[in-house]
C-alpha cells in the first residue's frame, strides 16, 4: 500500500513539469553554422561605424495568388551609437531616413514632403520609434546593437550548407529555421567576415513570399562628411506630421 502511495505521489509530482513544458522545438543548430554566423554578427556588433549597399527584392502576393517581385535599393551609413542615414529607392517610391541623435527625419522625395520628430538617443530606440510610427526599416537587424538576437532567441534549426558560389567567390552558405520563416544567409569569411546575402522565406505567409537582400560595398571605415546626418529640406519641401494609425479626425483641424 505504501508502495502504491509512493508511486501515486511520484506520478503527481511528475505531472506539473510535463504540463508546463513548452511545445517549442528545441534549438538544433550545428556548430559550424553557429560559428560562422556569430563571427559575422560580432563584426557588425563591434564596428563603431559602417556603410553598406543593399540590393533588395521582395515578393508581394496578390489576392489572386499572383506573386509580384519589387525592388528596393538602400544605401546605409551608420555611426554608432546615434547616427544613421538610409537612402532608399524602390518601385514604391523613394525615401530618406536621417537620424542625428536628436532628430529623426523621414523624407519622401517623390512628394517633396518630410516629417521631423524628436528622436531617442540611440539607433536601437530610434528603430523602435520608427516601428511605432509604422515606418518599415528593412534589414533593421544590421543596424541593431544586437544583430544576431534572432540567432540566440528564436532559431529552431540551423545548418551549415557548405561553401557556395556567390558573385564571383565561394562563401559560407547557412540555413536557419524560425517559427514562421526560413533564412538562408551567405557569409564571406576571412579576417573581416561580412554577410553577403540574406534570403528570408515567410513559410507561414500566404504564397510563401520571399525577401532577398544582396549586400555589397561593405566599408567598416567609411568616410563620413560633416553634415552627413543632418537634413536640410530641399527648396519647396513641405513639412508634414506623422499620423498615428487609427487616428480619427482629431488634430486634422487647424
Amino acid at each position: 500500500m505504501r508502495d502504491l502511495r509512493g508511486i501515486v505521489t511520484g506520478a503527481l509530482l511528475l505531472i506539473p513539469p510535463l504540463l508546463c513544458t513548452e511545445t517549442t522545438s528545441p534549438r538544433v543548430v550545428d556548430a559550424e553554422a553557429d560559428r560562422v554566423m556569430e563571427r559575422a554578427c560580432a563584426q557588425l556588433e563591434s564596428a563603431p561605424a559602417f556603410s553598406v549597399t543593399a540590393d533588395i527584392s521582395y515578393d508581394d502576393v496578390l489576392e489572386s495568388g499572383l506573386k509580384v517581385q519589387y525592388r528596393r535599393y538602400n544605401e546605409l551609413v551608420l555611426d554608432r551609437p546615434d547616427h544613421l542615414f538610409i537612402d532608399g529607392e524602390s518601385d514604391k517610391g523613394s525615401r530618406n531616413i536621417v537620424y542625428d541623435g536628436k532628430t529623426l527625419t523621414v523624407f519622401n522625395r517623390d512628394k517633396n514632403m518630410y516629417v521631423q520628430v524628436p528622436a531617442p538617443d540611440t539607433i536601437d530606440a530610434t528603430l523602435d520609434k520608427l516601428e511605432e510610427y509604422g515606418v518599415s526599416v528593412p534589414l533593421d537587424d544590421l543596424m541593431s546593437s544586437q544583430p544576431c538576437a534572432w540567432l540566440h532567441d528564436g532559431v529552431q534549426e540551423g545548418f551549415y550548407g557548405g561553401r557556395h558560389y556567390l558573385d564571383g567567390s565561394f562563401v559560407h552558405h547557412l540555413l536557419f529555421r524560425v517559427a514562421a520563416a526560413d533564412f538562408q544567409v551567405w557569409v564571406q569569411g576571412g579576417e573581416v567576415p561580412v554577410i553577403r546575402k540574406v534570403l528570408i522565406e515567410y513559410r507561414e505567409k500566404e504564397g510563401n513570399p520571399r525577401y532577398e537582400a544582396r549586400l555589397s560595398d561593405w566599408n567598416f571605415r567609411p568616410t563620413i562628411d560633416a553634415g552627413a546626418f543632418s537634413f536640410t529640406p530641399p527648396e519647396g519641401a513641405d513639412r508634414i506630421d506623422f499620423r498615428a494609425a487609427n487616428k480619427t479626425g482629431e488634430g486634422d483641424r487647424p
Partner: protein
Amino acid sequence: MMYQISEWKSARVFLSSVMATVLLIGPVLFAPEPGSDGEGVAWAGKFDKGGGGKAEKRGGGGKMTMPQKSKIDRKPRASSAKQGSMKKASKERPGAQQQAKARPQAKPQAMAKSQAKPQQRTSDSPRDQPFTRKADGKPQQQAKASGSRENLAARDQKMPKQTSTQQVAKKPDTSRLQGGQDRQTQRADRDKQVKEGRQQYAANKQDIRSDRKKAAEELQQNRFDHQDEAREDRQDWADQSREDRQKHQRQMANERRDLYEDIYDDRRYWGNNDYYWDDDDDDDNNGWLWGIGGAVIGGVAGYAIGAAVNEPPEGTVAVPVGGVPYQYYGGAFYEPAPSGTGYVTTAAPVGAQVEAPPIDCTIVFGPEDEGYCYFQGAFFIYDDSANQYVVVEPPAGTSVTYLPPGYEEVTVADTKYMKLGGTYYRPYYEGDAVTYVVSEV
C-alpha cells in the same frame, strides 16, 4: 523601250532597298536609350556617393519630377515579404499567420451570397457593415443625402422613364418596414432564378460561359488597380486589428465583386427584355461582356474629370441629381456637355445614388469606423434603406491614399492642404506612405 523598262525596274529595286534599310535601321538609330525616358532606370546613376548632403542634392530646388508609379502597388495583397527583418520574423507566431490565411472564398456560390450579405448588413458592428450608413452617425450627411433622396423621388416622377436596366436593378420594395428579411428572401429568390437561368442558358450556350469567365477575370484584374495604398504599406508584423482590417477589406472587396456579378447577372439574364435568357442570343448580344471590361477601363484608367466623350459607355445608368441628368458607369459620372453635344466626365455629385459603387474603389474608414468606397475624390456609402450607394460629402478625419488630378495646394495657418472641389485634404505621413486626410478648415 526594253531599256526603259529595265531601268525602271532597277530604280524600283533600288528604292525598295532604300526603304527597307530605313525601316530596319531607323528604329535602331532613333531608339531611346535605356533609362532616358523612364524606362530601365539605371539604379547606379541615381545615387550620390560619399555620405552627406544627399537630401539637398536630391531636392534640386523644387518639386521632383514624379517617377513612373507602379500600377500594381495598390492592389490588395494577401501577404508580403517587404519587412525583411530576421529579428521580427523569428518572433512571429505561426498561428497569427494562419488566421490571415483563412480569407473568404473568392467567389462564393449564389446561395452563400444570399445568406452572407444580409447577415453582414444587419450586424451591429460598423466593421461588419461595408460602406453602410450609421443611423446615429453623421446627421448632417444623412440629412443631406435623405434630402437628396426626397428630391430624387420627386424628380423621378417628372423624369422620363429610366432604362429598363435600372428598373430591374431597383428592388420591388425597399421600404424600411419590410426589413432585411424581405430583402433576404427577395435576394434568395432572385439568386435562385439567376441560378436556374444560368443552368438553362448554359445548356444552350456553353461558349457564353467561357466568355463570362473571361470577362469576370478581366473585371477582377481591373479591380486590382487603384486600390488601398495605405493598407498595403502597413507593417507586416502589425497587430491583430490590422489583420482584421485586411481580412475585412477582402471581405468587402469580395462583396463588391459579388454585387457586380449580381447586377450584371441581372442585366444579362433579364436584360432589356425582362427575361433571363434568349434563344436568339448571338455573339452580337454578348457585347455586354466586353462592354463591362471596356467601361471599367474607361471608368478607371481613362477617367479624367472634364474629359469629353461623344457618348457614355454602353450600359450607363441615368442618375439625375439636382436636375442634372447624369449618366453613371464604372465609377464615372457623365453630364451633358455645355456645348450641347456629347458628354463630359464630372466629379461625383453629392447625393447621387447608384446601385453599384465603382468596382475599383478603395475601402477607407471614417472617424467612426464606418466604411466608405473611395474613388477619385468621391465617397460612396451604402444606404441600407434604399439598397443603394450614396455619394456623400467627404467625411472629416478620413484618410485616402491618393487624390485625383485637379486639386490645388493651399496653406492655411502654416499648414499645407490640398483643396479638391470644396474639400481640404491635409497630407500626413502614415506608415510608409503620404496620405491625405479630409480636414475641416
